[in-house]
């Protein structure tokens, strides 16, 4: 059998605060290859914490435990800083929600991308510049040479996010974790950024973990969807079969969204069942 790109079994992430312990992720399992996986849930469901644990980005007050936590056959449990450095950015990368906060405001967009490339690949300045320009072109930026020299405050949100994606892809990672990559963008721009991600993933044969609160969006975009609630996966679905979701939480999420093609006097609200927390 081909070895999976990511194998997670019974992942637990617990945070210590001054007064108590909070279990943010409680027993998540996922085996994936070079496919597009969506992780969907509301704030506090543990979706982002799961993505971050896979990248070793759990904050110091958090503890990660798992029966299995592997990337491309390599055990990630107990990996040291040096080990993480070889993986992060080079083999697995992350795109975060808001380009305003994830781009360095005092460095031009192009230099940041070139720097990312040289951090991971032993290359000269000229080569890094070429790679950065090519990466900007790959994310459909029309005039890469001009955008290369712009500072983050000089680009729009959509362009900033495309630049972030370019930066994450320049080292050609095998896995991209995108945490709400388009939530800060307008719908029409969002659509174009998703199309770019879609093409890049298909062309390069990457794995993608797409973390989002937007169930419809993720279903239209991914191959499989994990629905999280209270730190657990309550349902796993083929994205094309979202309408056949059976878990009341998934159904409730789908039902409470206002839709243009479904006029309603009153919106349905989610009736939370305490049993969902126990994994029912």
């Amino acid at each position, binding site marked *: 059998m081909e070895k999976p790109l990511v194998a997670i079994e019974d992942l637990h992430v617990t945070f210590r605060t001054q007064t108590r312990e909070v279990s943010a992720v409680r027993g998540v399992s996922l085996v994936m290859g070079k496919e597009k996986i969506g992780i969907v849930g509301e704030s506090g469901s543990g979706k982002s914490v799961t993505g971050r644990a896979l990248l070793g980005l759990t904050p110091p007050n958090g503890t990660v435990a798992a029966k299995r936590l592997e990337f491309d056959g390599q055990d990630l449990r107990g990996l040291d800083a040096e080990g993480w450095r070889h993986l992060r950015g080079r083999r697995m990368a992350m795109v975060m929600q808001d380009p305003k906060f994830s781009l360095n405001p005092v460095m031009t967009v192009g230099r940041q991308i070139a720097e990312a490339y040289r951090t991971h690949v032993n290359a000269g300045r000229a080569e890094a510049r070429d790679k950065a320009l090519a990466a900007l072109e790959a994310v459909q930026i029309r005039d890469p040479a001009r955008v290369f020299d712009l500072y983050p405050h000089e680009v729009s949100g959509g362009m900033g996010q495309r630049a972030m994606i370019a930066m994450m892809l320049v080292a050609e990672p095998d896995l991209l974790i995108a945490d709400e990559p388009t939530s800060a963008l307008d719908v029409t721009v969002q*659509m174009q950024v998703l199309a770019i991600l879609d093409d890049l993933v298909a062309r390069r044969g990457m794995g993608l973990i797409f973390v989002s609160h937007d169930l419809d969006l993720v279903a*239209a975009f991914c191959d499989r969807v994990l629905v999280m609630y209270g730190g657990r996966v309550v349902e796993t679905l083929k994205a094309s079969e979202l309408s056949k979701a059976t878990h009341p939480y998934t159904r409730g999420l789908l039902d409470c969204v206002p839709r*243009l093609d479904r006029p309603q006097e009153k919106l349905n609200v989610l009736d939370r069942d305490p049993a969902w927390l126990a994994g029912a």
Partner: protein
Amino acid sequence: MILSARNLTVTFGEMRAVDAAAFTVARGESFGLVGESGSGKSTVLRALAGLLDNWTGELAFDGRALGRTRDRAFYSRVQMVFQDPYGSLHPRQTVDDALAEPLAIHKMDRREARIEKALEEVGLGRGFRFRYPHQLSGGQRQRVAIARALIVEPEMLLLDEPTSALDVSIQAEVLNLLDALRRRRDLTFVMVSHNLAVVAHMCARLAVMSRGKIVEEMDTESLRAGAARDPYTQRLMAASRGYDRALAESFRALD
């Protein structure tokens, strides 16, 4: 007609954030302004609320022209709810403080009773009265912001993306609450949102804004029936149906 705008223009330096916008809102109506970031929709709302003074044109409320500044009487009739419930409540004021302040400003009586009633109306029990914002969830904070706006018994609410920062399940609860309050109190709403489906749910009529201009105004039924004529409105509608590879391609061609 309770509110009208004619030739409303707002400029920031060289930039025309709002360009000759015109619309009217009837008493008891729920009117929506839809558009993407930078379209000028929130700027229109801020000009209405008296939070800007760099506008030209004519604004009128209940038959009287509005000037650059607004008096207290205006704010006892028109109140605003902002997008971010994390930014709009003072972190060191309890819910009780937040609700008592407008009562003091407007010199209203029976404060005790009004605060309790306001909390009850937005579905928060007495137990929430002496909590601080950090002890509340996003949805609860937005309920407090709504209670604070309604406690002075206004006729009109200006709503700036009131649920964009909330999870969809909480959004449904807050939208239902706003709708119920509007019916019960005969309120007039002017609601700004980037989400076409949210506005269609809440409003009977809406205007679509793009680059400072109102490009189309229509009733919600026509919108749902697909009668939008303006290409920008059509594009927004298509995008709000969800991700579609071919559609994204067509947007690129339009850029």
